[in-house]
């Protein structure tokens, strides 16, 4: 079990501090030339820990040096340090996403509207088909029976100090206008609950 430490050397052969990689099953004392992917990885990693000073030395003379655990006593300390940093970074990005669905339900069937004929269907038949109305509005020339239900979809996202919340509420409604003879004179319907959606507020 070995660790590998990436050291970027300048042209004079002096080592510049760079991040440590935890790798295993690598032979000690092997010098590996930096390949392009490794160089990119090193660059990204270096950016992550803000060691911009290392980047200017990542030229042709830069090499990757493999060291054993015993070569530096402080290697465990560094590992622990990186673990702490990694945990802090992860905890900074902790977040929460929530989706919710709220339904105000009434069991009326929209297909039953086919059975309603203005001028024929009575108020009693409407209630047999659709049940008790959500609301009855008294009008000067009769009444209006209102059947309503709604669906609300909520989306929430918490990102440390940022919170985004979105609610989309849509309704299904049927209105029957009942004349003084207790017969349906007109009716109107709109079914929009299926259009409720989960989305972000931006």
């Amino acid at each position: 079990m070995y660790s590998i430490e990436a050291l970027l050397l300048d042209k004079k052969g002096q080592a510049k501090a760079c991040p440590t990689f935890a790798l295993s099953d690598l032979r000690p004392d092997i010098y590996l030339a930096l390949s392009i992917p490794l160089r990119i990885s090193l660059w990204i990693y270096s950016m992550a820990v803000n060691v911009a000073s290392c980047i200017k030395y990542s030229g042709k003379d830069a090499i990757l040096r493999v060291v054993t655990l015993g070569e530096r006593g402080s290697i465990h300390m560094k590992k622990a340090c990186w673990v702490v940093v990694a945990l802090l970074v992860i905890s900074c990005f902790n977040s929460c996403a929530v989706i919710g669905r709220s339904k105000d339900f009434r069991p009326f069937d929209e297909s039953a509207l086919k059975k309603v004929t203005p001028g024929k269907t009575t108020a009693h038949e409407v209630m047999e088909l659709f049940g008790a109305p959500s609301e009855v509005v008294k009008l000067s020339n009769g009444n209006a029976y209102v059947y309503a239900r709604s669906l609300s979809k909520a989306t929430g996202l918490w990102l440390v100090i940022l919170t985004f919340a979105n609610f989309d509420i849509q309704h299904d409604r049927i209105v029957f206008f009942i004349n003084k003879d207790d017969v349906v004179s007109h009716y109107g319907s709109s079914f929009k609950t299926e259009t409720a959606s989960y989305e972000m507020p931006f």
Partner: protein
Amino acid sequence: MRCHSRKVMWLVIALLAGHVISGCVSLRVDKINDGADILPPPEGFMAGKTSLQEVLLYYGAPTEILDMQGYLALHYQRTFYRGGHISIGVPLGDVFRASPNLDAMADLVRHDAIVFIFTTDGLLKDMSYEKSTSRPLWDTYWE
């Protein structure tokens, strides 16, 4: 290695500071949409000609029905809410008497609405349409 350790130390300090600040600063953005989009009335809708049944066929069931002493009003409405809240504070209440705190919030509720008024015969007497959601958010807020 000293340079390396120092950089790690600063990174840890920065992250810890970020954690502390995250408990004191918050930004919230809300949006609530209640109802479907309200379309403008078609050109064919005219007072004295359009019937209650035609309006019901085009717009569906209204949000609200009102009896206006001899007249009938159908009201269709969509409500659109936008809200923002910023809070910056240092909770020192347990240590000092004063706890500096700054809260800023902004709410704007806009309504798209159309109202139709009918005579007792079921003929359109008057109508009015307003689409507030098409107005700019920022300018409308400070208007």
